[in-house]
């Protein structure tokens, strides 16, 4: 899928600032001694020095008259203590490594809500984890707010362009068409034929303008409601890409707020576009139904085509769907069709008091 390929490209491009070197195994980063080993080695030096000083002070003559077994016992004891020290240090430092791993893998857009466990202010590491979690929450909130603003701006702009196309250019072309009709009636046969050709051209432009306006902004959504808008959408796919969409839409559809309706519509539009472009099938299913009586609605778009290639990493289209879903607190899942062939996109709307 294009989306998947795109995701990989994006991934390479996105980290503008590389994370600071913190693990020795990471390729391309400077190797360093991990903190636990470094502190343990300092401790070892201090310990050995302490033992030597103690012997020097308490029994200076002993230094020159060590028995072999005494030296071995002392050496083993020192090694044991140093090893124990290292184990304890590694345990103390483990949360830092977990934090580093989380910080490296965290993805606010496709896997929000991932947090450090054991984040409590009972140790420095715990406090750091708590602060880190708080920072993630703040970033997620800011990001979702920013996404919301961008999407709202995008929709407003689309609406404006669609309206302008429809109200201005569309209407003017209709007026031109009417004027041409009048000219044709008044003209002689030859001219009438020419005018007829111009009429056809204007008519084609008018159809184009209407199609573009419809794609930009589902006019039907405002006028006819979500049910009809989805029906019109499916019909358009049938006309333009030969994709037959089987519709299973709950009747009557429980009332949704306009924002949710738009998200459902756009996700359906994007998912069907993906099916038409990539799935290599001419049949898809669109369902908008509740799983349980009075339960929240679930939008399902399923096909039995080629399925999702690779690891299903989100591309721009899928990312857009996910961002829209997050905006209304809905859950988007994209996975293989349980039937064994093709893919399923599912948008579970949040359970609201109805």
């Amino acid at each position, binding site marked *: 899928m294009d989306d998947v390929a795109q995701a990989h490209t994006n991934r390479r491009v996105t980290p503008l600032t590389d994370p600071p070197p913190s693990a020795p195994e990471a390729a391309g980063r400077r190797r360093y001694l991990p903190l636990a080993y470094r502190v343990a080695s300092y401790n070892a030096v201090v310990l050995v020095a302490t033992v030597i000083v103690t012997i020097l002070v308490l029994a200076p003559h002993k230094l020159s008259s060590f028995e072999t077994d005494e030296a071995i016992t002392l050496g083993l004891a020192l090694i044991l203590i140093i090893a124990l020290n290292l184990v304890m240090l590694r345990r103390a430092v483990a949360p830092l490594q977990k934090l580093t791993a989380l910080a490296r893998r965290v993805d606010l857009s496709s896997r929000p809500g991932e947090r450090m466990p054991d984040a409590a202010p009972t140790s420095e590491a715990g406090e750091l984890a708590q602060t880190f979690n708080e920072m993630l929450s703040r970033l997620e909130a800011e990001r979702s707010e920013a996404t919301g603003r961008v999407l709202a701006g995008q929709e407003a702009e689309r609406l404006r362009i669609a309206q302008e196309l*429809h*109200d201005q250019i*569309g*209407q*003017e072309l*209709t*007026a*031109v*068409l*009417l*004027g*041409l*009709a*009048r000219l*044709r*009636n*008044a003209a002689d046969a030859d001219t009438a034929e020419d005018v007829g050709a111009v*009429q056809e051209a204007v*008519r084609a432009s*008018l*159809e184009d303008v*209407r199609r573009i306006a*419809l794609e930009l902004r589902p*006019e*039907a959504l*405002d*006028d*006819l*409601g979500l*049910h*009809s808008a989805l*029906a*019109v959408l499916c019909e358009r796919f049938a006309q333009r890409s030969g994709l037959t969409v089987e*519709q299973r*839409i709950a*009747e*009557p559809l429980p009332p949704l707020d306009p924002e949710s309706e738009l998200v459902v519509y756009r996700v359906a539009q994007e998912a069907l576009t993906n099916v038409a472009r990539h799935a290599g099938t001419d049949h898809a299913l669109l369902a908008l139904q509740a799983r349980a009586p009075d339960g929240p609605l679930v939008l399902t778009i399923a096909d039995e085509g080629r399925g999702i290639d690779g690891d299903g990493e989100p591309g721009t289209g899928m990312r857009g769907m996910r961002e829209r879903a997050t905006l209304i607190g809905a859950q988007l899942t994209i996975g293989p069709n349980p039937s064994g062939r093709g893919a399923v996109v599912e948008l579970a709307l949040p359970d609201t008091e109805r």
Partner: protein
Amino acid sequence: MSTTAITGPIARPSDEHRPGSDVDDRIRCIVVDDHPAIRLGLSELLAAEPDFRMLDAFATAEAAYAYAQDAEVDAAVVDYQLGGRSGLWCSRRLKSLPRPPAVLIYSAFSDHLLAAASVVARADGLVSKAALGSELCDRIRDAARGQAVLPLVPPAVADSLRHRLDPTEQAIYGMMSARTADAEIAATLGLTAEELEARSWTMLRKLIRIDASRP
């Protein structure tokens, strides 16, 4: 109230009474569209047809209805999307006049649900704004003769409609599709004229989401 937006005289060759005919049997038309260029274009187109008599053009549904109450109108071309109340409101109102004109809904997008709603609004036809002028004129002639037909609602949409309407409303819809008169529908279903009227508005609201579908 006059929202007639055609400024200046427009050529109306058909206004001159045709010689040799005592009775003016031309089709008297009005146009309702909130876009000035389309109002003008339509007026000129219809005025140029010898068998049409272009009466007036209006920007709002209310103005057209007010005019039609006192004038004899044979055909009305009504834009679906008007600034205030919709073309469906206008159609339903015009059709409830003692001598109702034929009503053609003139819409940029002809959706099946709009077709269904047009049936309830008692319109005689639905014409796309991309239709050629000659087609529009022919449709007006058909409608004025009482021969216009609304586009068929495909089975899938018809099925979805049945879910939206309750049994009584389905019966009303069926009779309206068959062009049964309101009085006859009311008599058949044992409704008063007011009840049928109220039902119609409810049906319009169920079929199409426009706040302009209030009575």
